[in-house]
């Protein structure tokens, strides 16, 4: 083994310590806000992610009634945690469309069978193209879209029970 190679582990480790130290000083609850909030949805038309629901297109959000757009994935653990709250939102009258990120039809179907299906439509976004275009950086995220196709509000992370009334209010605001 040549001499310089013996230093590689130490250098990698120093990199890790630097990164971890930097991340520890950063406040944890910093979310990446979408720059698209307040703007019109970009054009998209996604194929269906499962057999029993149609796909999603940007035109679907111009019906005049505000809707929720939920970004999720079958492989995402917080998405399991928020399934119950989506169910509650749907029961309270919210119309929810979903976009499944980097997923396979059979996995999405299994996820919905297991954790419930509150969605009217589900589009498949295989390369996160639409996700990135609307300014979402992770799963799950939920957008409130007003009846004219404008993004009114962005909720980052899983929806907890306490967020349900807040989202319903945002929906009502977007409709007025």
């Amino acid at each position: 083994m040549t001499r310089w190679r013996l230093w590689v582990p130490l250098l990698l480790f120093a990199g890790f310590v630097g990164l971890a130290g930097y991340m520890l000083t950063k406040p944890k609850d910093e979310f990446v806000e979408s720059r698209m909030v307040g703007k019109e949805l970009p054009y998209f038309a996604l194929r269906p992610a499962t057999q029993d629901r149609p796909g999603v297109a940007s035109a679907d959000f111009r019906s005049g009634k505000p809707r929720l757009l939920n970004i999720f994935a079958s492989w995402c653990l917080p998405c399991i945690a928020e399934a119950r709250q989506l169910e509650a939102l749907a029961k309270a009258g919210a119309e929810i469309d979903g976009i499944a990120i980097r997923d396979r039809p059979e996995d999405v179907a299994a996820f919905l069978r297991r954790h419930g299906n509150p969605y009217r439509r589900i589009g498949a976004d295989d390369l996160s193209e639409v996700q990135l275009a609307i300014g979402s950086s992770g799963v799950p995220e939920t957008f409130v879209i007003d009846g004219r196709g404008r993004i009114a509000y962005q909720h980052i992370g899983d929806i907890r029970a306490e967020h349900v009334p807040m989202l319903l209010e945002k929906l009502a605001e977007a409709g007025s």
Partner: protein
Amino acid sequence: MIAELGLAALWLAAALAALQLVCGALATHAGEGHDLALLTRPAAILQGGLAAFSFAMLVWVFAITDLSVKLVAANSHAMKPLVFKLAGAWGNHEGSMLLWVTVMALAGVLIAAVERRLPERTMQATLAAQGFVALGFYAFLLLSSNPFERLPIPAAEGMGLNPLLQDLGLAFHPPTLYFGYVGLSVAFSFAVGALVTRQVTPEFARAMRPWVLGAWVFLTLGITAGSYWAYYELGWGGWWFWDPVENASLMPWLAATALLHSAGVLAARDALRAWTIMLGVVAFSMSMLGTFLVRSGILTSVHAFAVDPERGSFILALLAIYIGGALLLFALRAGTVSEGERFAVASREGALVVNNVMLSAVLAIVLLGTLYPLLTEAFDVRVSVGPPYFNPVGTIFVAPMLLAMAVGPLLRWRQDSLGRVNREVALVAALILAALVLVSIVGEVSLLPLIGLSLAGGLAVASLLPLGGRTLRRVPLATWGMVAAHFGIAMALFGMASDSAFTKERLAALEPGQSAEAGPWRVTLDRVEPVAGPNWTALQASLSASYKGGEPIVLTPQARSFWAPPQQTTESALATRWNGQLYAVIGQEAGRGRWQIRLWWKPFVTWIWLGGMLVALGGVLALIGRVLADLKRRSVTRRARARRDEARALVAEPAE
């Protein structure tokens, strides 16, 4: 008073760790025969006693639910069953760190009292390193997470323990992993000691190996138990989620597995010296890194631990000092450790090197996947890395490793040719191919499970081949250990592949009297009724499950509500057969007297954990075999020395 006694013992133990460090370091520096060297071993032994005493005091305050102690008030409850009160002592951050240092100190006792094979200077350096590591953890406990802290006013009632953790399996899962981590800390101390004195010898590998083996057995058991716990307690029917906390336990295991095999090469053939040292450092780094990731809350995980950035910084500082220090020492010293014996590619060593490289690659992949979200988050991008990354990328390296694992044990040390074992190799290859073809004809199985099933078949047979042509009674225990462990891996792999290939899932809304089918099972809902336990109430479904029309078995899945703290858990019900498990969960009421019932038929899923246990058993056999062989070797050398002394005395006598 009890808490104060515990705290005092902890301070004293910390002081003794400092003494152990100073004496050991000075003795190492001065060379053989330094007076201070006499203090190192007694300091280590006394330190162990004090740490154990301190831990016993903590268990005591938990047993009597002393609510003036903050930790008890925050984690226990007078109404909790005794066994969970005791388990509560280590089911939290402070208590688990105390358990960690206690086990580490007891390991120190064992080395100080027993290990005499290595040159005394290396031992002094090893004990100094051990004291140094312990000192950091004492400082952590005493300065930032004191388990014996009192409340100014005693609490009226405790907060209770998270109900998910009120489970026997989990009471023993964390200590098991800790034993593993601590065993690796001993291996780390040995590696540092050998590096300081540049005596990386086969004796060093033999002294280190039992600790690595022991640690590896505990890690294997801990991971197996944790996976089974997640499987039946979380009610999702999954057994591995690639969650950061799971990865934190898998990474030390991968490193320990590699270390185990490279230490074997060093012990038998005096090769792979620097590499073994490196792995010794890496294995312990992975344990500490896991602790850091879990405790600092720097990564988001389904395991909600008490998260505290201050503690995170403390562990990171310890990590930087120990691992950074060891890697610096490695960079400075490893160049002067000579390379060791050479060997041909087609040899036992060659196969073990392939195994080591592949294991390290898998380790790197898991590490990268676990840390990647941290890296991207630094650039304000949030990602979640899951099975779509780990499964296929891991398979790329696991598959060749399994092939090396099938062939390696058949090869001879130093130099061999594949031609000598071509019949065995052809047999295994034919088996793997036959399984590939057969499985893909029989059912529609996706690629990864298909590879898994066929490799499992080939490996199962290959792992038994080293026994071929030998008198079974005379096969060494360590070889039995290897065979059992390799066969266990094949079993576990088969279970995993079978679970992902053949699982049948069914979600049904049933009225009492109605039935649903899942695979070969027909399940009838008899009734749903409330039941009560010591600190919970539950809705319990009674299901009659019949396998292929046979005699029905009664299953009782529950949805439990705990009241201290208030939380809901799902208690799945399992019907186990040799060829799989029926997994039943009761969900919510579906309206009009119907209940959601989730059923999974998971063929051969239990083989995952049976395989895991067999792997651990293999480790135990190897450990016993090695220790017995060492004892035998030691008594032989002692007798030889006694005879030599006697002879010398006889020769010397006439001269007087």
